[in-house]
């Protein structure tokens, strides 16, 4: 399908203008300005510059990719046009700012910002430079498409790593500080602020070379290996992953352990909600209720402050989980007849009811009202009190391992099939002899089980339970991480949780822009990869089996999709 050239030019122009608009947005929100002194490579490249120029580059590459049907010159031209038009739009800002005072409307449209956008030059000269730089960046981006893929991959990987390391310098230094002598091997790569120039060059060369080398090697697809070898490879991967998970907090230190704990609790919740939403297709927006119930029950049963009961964590935990499961059934009963949106609204209400009950004066003697419950017990294991982040990490890890095992087994069981059938077509599922009441209640109960368990660990981690920890946002986050990871996919929950709950912690430096970046990531993610980061094998088939059939390769469907 060849499009006429004029359409391609128009497309390049339009893509470039969108890129320019993105830069304008970033500039006016103030991100570019506030990161102008934050170096990625000390003295060479700042964060602000990257935020300013990267969108132009990315959109130009996109424009050039669409024009690839043209000649080489044409492709480069398309990139240059896109970059130029981005720059043109951006240039309007300082030009307009000269004529009228924009600050009344845009607090960030300051002379300093204009200075960044015009590379510190006089206005006219600056604008000309800006336009030239835009076109050059665009052309360079397009040229990337023309070089051999192996080199392109090496270059882009190297750039990404340099930016990443420069960005995460703070955190890396924290980790390095724990490594004693070994740290000196790496410390010279970094400057006060970002990478040192020599470090940047080193990282660039090393990553580039490694990528170039490894992408040249022939890789044997795991699927084509004989079963025995495949199993061995699986086993090795699992053992290696296990060892890494075990030593992770020791290597990374308390700050990261704290992040991992949060991520882990969300993985646990995600695995539970994944049964309800991903497997059975019951949209539950009040999942936080079970988290809260788990936490508060442990609180009531262990806190000496209330003095009602004096159980240990291990004695209280089973009770808490049972209470959460019962709550799951109680929520399930009235909503059995509801589907889709209606179900979502009712469960949303349920979540809020639980939070408001916890906050209420009426239940204050038991739940502590807005002050919550304090002095919740830590778990003891032998003579060891599990109380700091690192120890809790292991507790959570065990919880997740059990949850993954259960979810994975359930998925391929008779119960899992019933859930899936209900998700696909409730009426037909019932006509197949599936008892909707029992099956749906079991889904809610299993989901509540993990939510409750996660809540008990959360309570013991904080040694307290406050009503404000259990807001609607928790439910939304858990649901989002499932969608980001890939509905119904167990590894997807883990990946989704790492990305969604981990990245805001790592992006702390962005302070008030953190959630802007986060939101933008979500939007981009859903546009680019709607099936999730790690989609379930089934979903991959849903999207791609038809293509395979068309190619006539489906006579041997992927073994992992087959039933054992």
């Amino acid at each position: 399908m060849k499009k006429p050239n004029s359409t391609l030019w128009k497309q390049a122009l339009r893509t470039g203008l969108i890129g320019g608009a993105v830069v304008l947005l970033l500039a006016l929100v103030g991100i570019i300005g506030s990161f102008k002194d934050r170096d990625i490579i000390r003295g060479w490249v700042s964060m602000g510059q990257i935020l300013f120029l990267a969108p132009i580059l990315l959109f130009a590459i996109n424009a050039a990719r669409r024009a690839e049907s043209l000649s080489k010159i044409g492709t480069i031209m398309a990139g240059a046009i896109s970059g130029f038009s981005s720059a043109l739009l951006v240039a309007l800002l300082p030009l307009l700012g000269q004529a009228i005072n924009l600050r009344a409307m845009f607090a960030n449209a300051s002379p300093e910002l204009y200075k960044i956008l015009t590379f510190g030059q006089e206005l006219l000269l600056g604008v000309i430079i800006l336009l030239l730089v835009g076109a050059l960046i665009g052309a360079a981006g397009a040229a990337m498409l023309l070089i051999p893929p192996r080199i392109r991959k090496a270059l882009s990987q190297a750039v990404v790593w340099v930016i990443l390391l420069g960005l995460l310098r703070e955190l890396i230094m924290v980790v390095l500080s724990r490594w004693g002598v070994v740290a000196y091997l790496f410390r010279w790569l970094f400057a006060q602020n970002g990478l040192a120039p020599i470090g940047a060059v080193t990282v660039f060369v090393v990553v580039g070379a490694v990528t170039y080398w490894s992408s040249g090697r022939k890789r044997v697809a795991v699927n084509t290996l004989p079963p025995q070898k495949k199993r061995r490879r699986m086993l090795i991967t699992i053992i290696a992953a296990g060892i890494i998970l075990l030593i992770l907090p020791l290597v990374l230190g308390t700050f990261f352990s704290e992040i991992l704990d949060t991520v882990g609790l969300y993985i646990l919740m995600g695995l539970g909600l994944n049964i309800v939403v991903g497997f059975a297709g019951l949209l539950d927006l009040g999942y936080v209720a079970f988290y809260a119930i788990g936490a508060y029950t442990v609180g009531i049963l262990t806190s000496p402050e209330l003095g009602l009961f004096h159980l240990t964590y291990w004695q209280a935990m089973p009770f808490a989980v049972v209470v959460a499961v019962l709550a799951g059934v109680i929520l399930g009963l009235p909503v059995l007849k509801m589907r889709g949106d209606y179900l979502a609204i009712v469960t949303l209400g349920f979540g809020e009811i639980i939070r408001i009950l916890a906050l209420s004066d009426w239940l204050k003697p038991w739940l502590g009202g807005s002050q919550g419950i304090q002095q919740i017990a830590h778990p003891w294991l032998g003579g060891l009190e599990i109380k700091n982040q690192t120890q809790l990490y292991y507790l959570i890890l065990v919880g997740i391992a059990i949850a993954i095992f259960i979810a994975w087994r359930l998925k391929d069981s008779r119960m899992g099939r019933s859930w899936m059938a209900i998700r696909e077509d409730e009426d037909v599922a019932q006509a197949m002899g599936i008892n909707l009441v029992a099956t749906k209640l079991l889904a809610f109960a299993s989901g509540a089980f993990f939510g409750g368990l996660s809540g008990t660990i959360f309570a013991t981690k904080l040694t307290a339970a406050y009503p404000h920890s259990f807001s609607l946002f928790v439910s939304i986050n858990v649901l989002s991480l499932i969608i980001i990871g890939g509905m119904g996919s167990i590894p997807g929950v883990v990946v989704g949780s790492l990305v969604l709950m981990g990245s805001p912690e790592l992006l702390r430096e962005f302070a008030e822009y953190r959630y802007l970046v986060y939101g933008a990531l979500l939007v981009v993610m859903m546009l680019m990869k709607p099936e999730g980061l790690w989609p379930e094998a089934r979903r991959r088939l849903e999207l791609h089996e038809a293509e395979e059939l068309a190619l006539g390769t489906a006579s041997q469907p992927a073994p992992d999709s087959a039933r054992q």
Partner: protein
Amino acid sequence: MSVLVSKKVTKRFGGLEALAKIDLEVKEQAIHSIIGPNGAGKTTFFNCVTGFYTSEEGEIFLGERNITGLSPDRVTRLGVSRTYQNIRLFKNMTAVENILVGMHPHLRSGLFGGILHDPRTMREESAAVEEANRLLQFVGLKGKGDLMAKNLPYGQQRRLEIARALASKPTLLLLDEPTAGMNPSETQEMVYFIRKLRDELGITILLIEHQMRVVMSISELISVLDFGQKIAEGTPDEIQKNSRVIEAYLGRGAASGLGEKVQ
């Protein structure tokens, strides 16, 4: 002996009487057709039998047992199974999984069996998969077990839906327009296949069908519905000559002399 007996079954939607006092009797191991113009109430009758609708009046018996008002899953467990006019497979499940869901009533393993994989569950599961593959072979879909249902060609989807219905080991199978959308040769295959179901598995078959050629060649007894009423019943020969049937299909006035064109 009758497998299914409906006595004065009536179903109303608001003011509309979709079924009015339908009496119907399906004999054991019969191939019995229900025909009638669009909107005659044929599918509504199926929905009443399978428990998806509850009839306002009348009673439905499966053998000796009164199944009026039972939920669909209960009715299925008692041995009634059906297919749909517009194919309703679990599209995003594989062919084998579709059949395994159909076997649901005969499998015992619960939540804990599924998690713990005790020997009984494992035996049951592997037997079920084996049985599912046998059913696939029976309906002519050997080797297609791992394909997504929605990626099968239309005719095979129809067969898979029947295989799924057979998985619950029904005594009575309700087929809602099994040849809809099929070309003449596919239709002919389906006719043979339906006979095979009855002859080899001994299942009683009640079907809704629009193609007169199919109806007349396959049925032992035909019931004709029109506007929710049963207007005729008899063997294919009798029905072809029945003036009320011809009138229902071709309109008043056509009844005289046009009878033979119905087929």
